[in-house]
């Protein structure tokens, strides 16, 4: 089990009262799966994803990554966990605007052991793998949104993570580009065996996963494991 979530709850304190984003969530994710999490807006799916990535701390419950207790880690330990084991792909791409595609992909390698040339070679190779070999020196604003999301995916894979967490990665893309991005994630999942957990609004995109979780009002209401993944078509 790469991730083991036990009775996790998360409560936000707002001016007009506390809001329960997650309520006693239990979820076990085997290694190498493509997990999709769906649910209506405000259902808690993004909160669950952030908790899995150690970006926020649950109010109660336990979370384990390969047996390591995420819920008990310090800020610095969580930062180390993220840079060593997790890659993130966000709806807004989350690229640093003044870094080129190559430099954005090199970013997670700053904390690694590789020298500058090795970093550069690795980042260039990954960008080549996502079809951006000719765009390495372009700034994000010089790339199309589809290309920007490819750079984000390349960056997510730069540090050879065990886990990719994707939050609405196709939310800003048209159906054709969405299909390309989902296919890319799918290929990387299959080729590298990297576990992918993807939050999406789209039922079509969700069908790409072989583990499908539906969440509503902070609770998991559906959990299908080892289902056959379907290819995503235009309109996803």
């Amino acid at each position, binding site marked *: 089990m790469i991730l083991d979530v036990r009775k996790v709850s998360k409560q936000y304190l707002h001016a007009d009262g506390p809001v329960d984003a997650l309520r006693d969530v239990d979820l076990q994710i085997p290694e190498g799966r493509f997990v999709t999490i769906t649910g209506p807006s405000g259902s808690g799916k993004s909160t669950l994803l952030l908790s899995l990535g150690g970006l926020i701390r649950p109010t109660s419950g336990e979370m384990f990554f390969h047996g390591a207790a995420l819920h008990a880690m310090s*800020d610095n330990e969580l930062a180390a966990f993220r840079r060593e084991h997790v890659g993130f792909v*966000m709806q807004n791409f*989350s690229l*640093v605007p003044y870094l080129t595609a190559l*430099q954005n992909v090199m*970013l997670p390698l700053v904390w690694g052991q590789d020298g500058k040339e090795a970093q550069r070679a690795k980042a260039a190779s990954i960008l080549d793998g996502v079809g951006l070999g000719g765009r390495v020196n372009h700034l994000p604003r010089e790339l199309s949104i589809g290309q920007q999301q490819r750079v984000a995916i390349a960056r997510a894979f730069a540090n050879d993570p065990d886990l990719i967490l994707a939050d609405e990665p196709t939310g800003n893309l048209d159906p054709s580009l969405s299909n390309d991005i989902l296919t890319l994630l799918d290929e990387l999942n299959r080729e590298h065996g990297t576990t992918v957990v993807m939050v999406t609004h789209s039922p079509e995109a969700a069908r790409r996963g072989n583990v499908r979780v539906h969440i509503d009002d902070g609770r998991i209401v559906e959990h299908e494991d080892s289902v056959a993944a379907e290819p995503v078509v235009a309109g996803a």
Partner: protein
Amino acid sequence: MSLFKLVWLELLHRKSQVLSGLLAITLGIGVIVGIQSVTRVSEIAVAIRLDNLGANILVLPQAASVDDYYTADIDAPTMPEDFVERILTSTLPGVDNLSPKLTRRTEVNGRKVVLTGITPANEIASKPVWQSAGLVGADLTLTCDPNSEANKSLGYKDERLQRKAVESLPEGSSIVGSAAAVRLGLSEGSTFTVPERSEDATAPPTEREFQVAKVLPETGTIDDDRIFVNLKDAQAVFGIHDQVSAIEIMGCCNAISAGLLSQLRNILPDTRITTVKQLVSTQLDTNRLMQKVSLSFLVIVLIVGAISIGNYIWANVNERRKEIGILRMIGAPKSNIYGMLFGKAIILGLVGGVLGYLLGTAAGVILGPELAGLNVPPVPIYLLWAVLLSLAAALLGTLVPAWLAGRIEPFANMQEV
């Protein structure tokens, strides 16, 4: 890719922001360097002008009182003239001029008057008011400023450096105070006689004739009622050879506060040494005031500089919330975020310090002669202080924004949670 390169790329990306931040710190440092450069030269000028006020230390015979010095009683104690030589050969730092004198009451034209024997070059050198009457005294060297040679290039008028020696007040010549001249009916070129005590006490006194070389302008001091003649003449007239009644010293006020009096007492144990307190305290107070003004500017610039840099870094942090969130998301620990912000502050501090030094120095060199009438030379050591001050202001100003940046959550880059 390294964190330093990341900082550098970010600086290049936001050139206008960096320039405005740099401008703020450069101006701040420039102002303090400029003011400090002018103040430094002004301090020297003021110190010299204060020293120009005249003698500020009195050496009197052990048995004499300060009252004796002013009243010039006929029996007032005296001391050997070679005490002057003893001070001169001691090469004490801070002794700028020595004026030995012998003062006694006598009679001229049947009226009582005080006759003072002086060594003219030294006496005139210590009395700026006399010089306005056209008298010039000895060349003096400033002992309170180690760069006294450099003072000549500073542009201000150091009266002592400009005075030329009068070879002598020839025997038989005199300088007469304004009130004494009126009272005795004396004018330049006229003559008068004073009784001369013979070596032989039983012999009747003889008369010695003096010609008035100069009538002093009114000074408002005891000098107005006195007649000044060559020390040798006075010693002969009063029959007190090789003796003086007082030695006036122009001492550098800094040297006085550093213990000049006790050093003089060591050399001349059988004398009474005192300061003209009002003069010395004025000199010391003025020096302290100048130092306080400098310190005030330093504190103001440090605070204003820190606020300027803090404001820039704060705005920068707010603008980069999403970017900092990205870095935190992919695993940058808080220490890296602090390091990047302080790294940027160090770069700004270093560059701002150097530019501020150049700006302030240029302003001093160019504007000093125009605004203050002083030549303000560059002070290389200020480069070090400018950089240190600039770094301190930049780092101080970054403390709060860095703390706020550390509180940015790693999911701050997401659109919604």
